C-alpha cells in the first residue's frame, strides 16, 4: 500500500510533536502519594528528569516503590515487579 506523501509528512510531524511532548513530560507512578522529599531524591538519582514536568500517578497494586515513565522508557522499581522477579527465580530454581 502506498502512503500519500502529504499524509506521510503529516504523520512525521505528528510523531515528532508527540515525541517532543513526551520527552518534556515524566510520569511517576507509585503505590501511595510520594512526599516532596522522596520526589526530590528520585530527581537526584535520575538527573535527566530534573528539568522535566512530573505527572504523579497512584496505582495501589504496585504495593511499594515506583515506576518512572519517560516516553517509551520505563524504569520499574516497584515491589510488584520485584515479586514477579522472585516468581521467575522460584520457577527457574525449582
Amino acid at each position, binding site marked *: 500500500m502506498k502512503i500519500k506523501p502529504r499524509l506521510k509528512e503529516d504523520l512525521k510531524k505528528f510523531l515528532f510533536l508527540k515525541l517532543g511532548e513526551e520527552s518534556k513530560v515524566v510520569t511517576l507512578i507509585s503505590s501511595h502519594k510520594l512526599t516532596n522529599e522522596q520526589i526530590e531524591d528520585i530527581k537526584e538519582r*535520575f538527573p535527566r528528569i530534573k528539568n522535566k514536568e512530573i505527572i504523579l500517578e497512584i496505582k495501589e497494586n504496585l*504495593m*511499594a516503590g515506583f515506576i518512572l515513565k519517560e516516553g517509551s*522508557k520505563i524504569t520499574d522499581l516497584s*515491589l510488584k515487579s520485584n*515479586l514477579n522477579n*522472585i516468581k*521467575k527465580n*522460584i520457577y527457574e530454581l*525449582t
Partner: protein
Amino acid sequence: MENLGLDYKLLIAQVINFGLFFLLFKKFIAKPFLNLIKEEEENEKKNEQLKSKLLKQDEEIEVKRNSFKDELDEKEDKLITSAKERAKSVELKIIEEAEEDAKRIKQDALLEIEAEKQDLYKQLKNKISELSLIIVDKSLKEVLNEDTKKKITSAIIKNLPKDTSLYEN
C-alpha cells in the same frame, strides 16, 4: 462188369463231370478262396505287427508318463519346499517388522510420557511459583500500611546506585 452193376457210360460221364467240376472249382473257387485266405493271413500278420507296435508304443508312453510323473512330483516337491522357505522368510520378515513397529511405538510412547511428564513438571513449577507469589502478595497486602509503603519506597530510593542508566528499559 455189367453184371457187377457198373455202367461204363455213366462212369465216364461222371469222370468227365468230376474233371470238369475239378477244373472249374480250381479256377473259379479254390484260387480266389486261397487268395482271400492268404490276404487274410497277411492282414492278420499286419494287424499283429501293428498290435505289437502299438503295445510297444503304449509301453513307451507308459514309461514316459511315469518319468513325467516323477519329474512332475520332483518339481512339485521343489515348488512346495521353495514355497515353504519363502513363507518362512516372509514370516520372519513380518515378525521382524512387527517387532520393529512395537519397538518404535514403545519408544514413541516413552517419549510422549517423558514430554507429558516434563510438561506437568513445568506446570507444577509454574503453579508453585504462582502460589508462592500469591501467598507473599496476600501477606504483604495485609502487612503493608501507608507508613510501611513509604518506608519501603524511601529505602528503594536510597539504595539506588548513582548510575541509574542501568534501570533504563
